[in-house]
């Protein structure tokens, strides 16, 4: 294990998601990956610019990249678990090469597939997500050392300075809410939040 990864504090996803959401003052879009990442995003209080993924494991970052390219003036944050990002590491290479300055990726790394019964993930062993991301070409990738470090790292405008990847070592607590399983509603509300709704007067 790299020294960088060994020397960090284990944090809590629910608490850090709340800290992040409190910092989002410019209608930033947030893509919550499948499972605990989006459950805790929902638990932190629904915002019109939240998108909750109820399937398609591994696609939070590609979806966030699409949003970031379509609306380059809006900050975009992807919240993804370590098991999910392991499923599609290639997207880190794509993001590195597209260089979206308005995209931030946050990886919640508990080293396990918590939701399916805490089976070990490769990240509990040899695989260091920050090293992978740097190798893919996202130079601004780093491990979050503790709460104060997290606060410093997110004390910025999310519409510039990217792409950035932050990896957070977290405990094994499950997500703290269940997002309503209504994909058309989730999409419709998200598009309203991004100003791209087709609903017209129906949305008012």
């Amino acid at each position, binding site marked *: 294990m790299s020294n960088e990864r060994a020397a960090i504090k284990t944090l809590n996803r629910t608490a850090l998601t709340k800290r992040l959401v409190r910092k989002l003052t410019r209608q930033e879009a947030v893509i919550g990956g499948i499972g605990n990442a989006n459950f805790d995003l929902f638990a932190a209080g629904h915002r019109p610019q939240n998108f909750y993924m109820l399937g398609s494991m591994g696609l939070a970052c590609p979806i966030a990249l*699409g949003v970031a390219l379509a609306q380059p003036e809006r900050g975009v944050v992807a919240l993804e678990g370590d098991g999910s990002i392991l499923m599609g590491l290639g997207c880190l290479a794509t993001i590195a090469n597209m260089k979206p300055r308005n995209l931030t990726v946050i990886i919640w790394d508990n080293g396990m597939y918590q939701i399916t019964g805490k089976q070990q993930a490769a990240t509990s062993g040899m695989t260091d997500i920050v090293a992978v991301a740097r190798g893919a070409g996202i130079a601004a990738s780093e491990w979050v050392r503790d709460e104060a470090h997290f606060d410093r790292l997110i004390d910025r405008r999310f519409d510039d300075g990217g792409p950035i990847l932050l990896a957070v070592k977290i405990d094994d607590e499950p997500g703290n809410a269940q997002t309503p399983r209504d*994909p058309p509603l989730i999409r419709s509300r998200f598009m309203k939040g991004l100003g791209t709704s087709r609903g017209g007067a129906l949305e008012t």
Partner: protein
Amino acid sequence: MTWSDTFLGVLKDNDVRLVSYVPDNVLTPLLKSVTTDNYFLSVGATREDEAIGTVTGAYMAGLRGAVMMQTSGFALLANALASLVMPYNIPAIMVISERGTLGEFNIGQALVARTMRPVLDTLGIVHHTLDDETRMRFVIDSSIKQAFATQAPVAFILSPLLTGGNPAALAKLKV
């Protein structure tokens, strides 16, 4: 006008600016234009489901997109289609160069090609096989408009009858 010029012209007519793709020999003329023409925003993806994710995010944020891939790449898409594109009603435009038929040398391609239309049919995704240059403009233009009007994906399968197939593959078949 070549089939690829016609195709790109219809994408422009319908404001489809984002193209995410995994390369393929037959798609070369399309991809060459997409990556050099400033109208298009091209995203080289590492996998086809990644491209579907990017087109989905872009659509919800107001930018229309298409995914270009070959037959074997489509075979990676069942989960992304069933758990993202279909339930969230995403009008993803899929452009698939058809391998595995009409002169295929690779048994893997021939076998995986058999899964494509059954997967599309099972999910109820409208698909059109383009094999005739004279009719393709109407087919793609009307189907793209229908996709966005009805919030549903559509797949265009580029038959070797239209594209001439993969010349490298055909050469390998020579006895």
